[in-house]
């Protein structure tokens, strides 16, 4: 939909999608991926907020990305990358 950059469409999109929503989707998807695939957590808590993601986890994430094939090819990671590319691209 953003292809072609029609001003009307871009305007409508930016007002109807909150930028925060995109950030929260990136973070939450990464959290779920990290806990479920890298840490093998049963993922039984009720809220995404119960699963914190800190700078200390960065190494774990990087390691999982490098060594775990399921992690690096997971749909959740592709969502994160797509959205990240959209925001910074």
């Amino acid at each position, binding site marked *: 939909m953003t292809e072609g950059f029609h001003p009307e469409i871009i305007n409508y999109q930016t007002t109807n999608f909150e930028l925060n929503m995109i950030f929260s989707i990136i973070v939450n998807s990464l959290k779920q991926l990290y806990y479920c695939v890298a840490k093998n957590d049963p993922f039984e808590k009720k809220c995404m907020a119960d699963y914190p993601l800190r700078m200390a986890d960065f190494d774990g994430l990087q390691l999982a990305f490098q060594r775990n094939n399921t992690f690096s090819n997971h749909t959740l990671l*592709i969502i994160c990358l*797509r959205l990240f590319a*959209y925001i910074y691209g």
Partner: protein
Amino acid sequence: MKYEEDPFYDKEYQKTIDLLMGELDFVTDLFRKEKLENFNEATFVSYANSEVLGTVIKLMNYFLVIKEGDLHKLSKYIPKLEELKTYLEGSKDGVLMIYGINIDELSSPERKKYEVELAQIDPELTIKMDKRKLIELCKIILELCSNIVKLKPLLDNKRKLITHKTSIKRTEKINNTIQNFSNKLSIRRENINCFFTKVENNLKKTGGKLQVTEYLSAYYEHYKMVKTSLEAEKNIYIISLKDENNPEMMSYSYNLCAFIHNQLNGEWCIDSKNQKFTLIESLINTLFISTKSIQFNLLKVIKETGNTVPMLDKIWIEMKWTMSFVKFKTTIDKYWKEAFKRCMILIKFHQFLCEDNNSSFKELMRSHILPTDTIDRVQRWTTIFQRMSDNCQWHYNYVKGEINDFERSHRPYLFPLATGVFDNLAELCSGPCTENQLKIYTFIYDRYNGFLQRYWRDPNTQFYKAKLHWWSLFFQ
């Protein structure tokens, strides 16, 4: 058949063989008049098989008990025996016609062995040659007759079913010709036309309209063009459709499209649905590999029908019904699975029509409104997702940031359908196709927002795949 004297008298064999051939002629004539006169099948079978061919067998057996001393008496009958053999194997209107068989079907390893043995004898050894020839000829005739008498003569109704003139048999025969691919391109091109030689001959004779459907359907069945498979790229007939610069291949591709279009344009009654879905699958298969040429020709065929698009309308209506069935059926059984598969096929079909940024089909989707509908197909795809999401509660009834478990009402097995819908929308809008984008950019943001912010406990759920495809649609 009556003989004035004993036929098995050693000087009269020539006469006997002539009499037998005359009798076989009589039997053939009688069979041809089957429709005109009072024809009793049982009597005819008994006479032709037991009396006439039985006598030939008896005679051949008599020849085969030959002794060295009698050889000089019998060697003069060799030309006559050859004549009988040629007569039996002979023309299309001969004895074999009665039984509806081809001489090739009667060839056996035994017979080939006789022929090889005969060819290996040194022609200078006349006596040995004569003896061998006599024995082999008799054995061949004996084998031929004993094979024939096992069969019943073919009456008209049965002949139609198994004759070599049926499309399938004809196709098989020509297929065998084509199997022996020549290295020369010109010969290969000629071979491709083999399938239509009969049709071309008919056209010349009658000057009438071509009735190609049955030949084509046999042809497509035969080449397994109706099945989607990863092997399709290896199918020379599908891959050759890719060649857009070759007028011959383009006309072949046009034929294929016209055939499938006409078939799908007919009534979608329950009996013929399997066939229709196979054809759509075939079309998807060819669209997937030779996208542009098939799209071009299919559009050409569709436009020839005028301003309406009955084929696309029928497929759309079928998709709507199948989708409703899949959405609302509460138990997942084999019928549901079958319907689900069909639904995915129809969704893929729509997607492949617009593949490779085909603006003509995108315009067709935008401009044609279904007879019973008020909005066009592009907008309809958004409402399809809207209804699906509403019915399955994908975008509401949850707290933001909450991790949910699937419940019965969520119907997680429908996520692949949502993925298919997003793929279709993405295909319709990409390019960029601003006209289509403007059609749908204001719709159902509440559903999208709710859908995107939802998280399920299972990280491998198809929901995330659908979500990814949604992002592909919006941020492509």
